[in-house]
């Protein structure tokens, strides 16, 4: 299973590239208003507006800031969540697996709760966060469990 893991240093790259995502989130929590011209590109667009409104041909101008940041968040969560720890062994794998199950459980709980308390177009916000919240949750739970285990064995 080790072959699926990335080198240890990729974790730090992940931590660095996730920062712009959070900065943007504080600038524009809705992820729709702040669209600098520098990120306007002509790209092939399959569906421009939900559900399938008409658009001019295949190529359309779109602001790619959101897309780039989302891609960065996905990349960062992959780099953080799947990088090797200092000593990679079978117990680490158990912790990783348990963290994944716990992250999935928390994720489902968040979905369950938001399903009842967030309505209308705001729910798109929930769906957007669902794209990368699982790997981030997994990374967080795994890091906390590793830290806890390390502290516990240090005390012993």
């Amino acid at each position, binding site marked *: 299973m080790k072959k699926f893991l990335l080198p240890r240093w990729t974790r730090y790259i992940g931590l660095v590239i996730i920062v712009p995502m959070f900065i943007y989130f504080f600038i524009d929590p809705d992820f729709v208003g702040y669209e600098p011209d520098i990120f306007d590109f002509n790209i092939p667009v399959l569906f421009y507006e939900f559900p399938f409104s008409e658009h001019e041909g295949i190529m359309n101008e779109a602001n790619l800031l959101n897309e780039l940041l989302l891609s960065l968040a996905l990349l960062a969560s992959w780099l953080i969540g799947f990088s090797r720890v200092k000593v990679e*062994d*079978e*117990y680490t794998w158990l912790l990783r697996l348990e963290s994944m199950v716990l992250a999935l459980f928390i994720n489902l709980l968040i979905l369950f709760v938001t399903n009842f308390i967030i309505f209308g177009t705001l729910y798109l916000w929930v769906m957007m966060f669902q794209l990368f919240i699982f790997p981030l949750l997994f990374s967080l739970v795994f890091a906390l469990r590793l830290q806890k*285990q390390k502290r516990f064995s240090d005390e*012993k």
Partner: protein
Amino acid sequence: MKNSIKVERAKNDITQARLAELAQVSRQTINAIELGKYVPSALLALRLARIFKTTVEEIFQLEEGE
């Protein structure tokens, strides 16, 4: 499952860190095994037995009802 790794370590005067190094695992793993929080794989159990020059059955014993 109970184990006598702590006893074997004491007999052989080996620290958790040294045992971890010899077994090619982390110190946290040895600690978790000693405390019964983690049951190692057959491979690691055999490796530990070889380090202590004994058998797996000597180190790991099933508890009643297991």
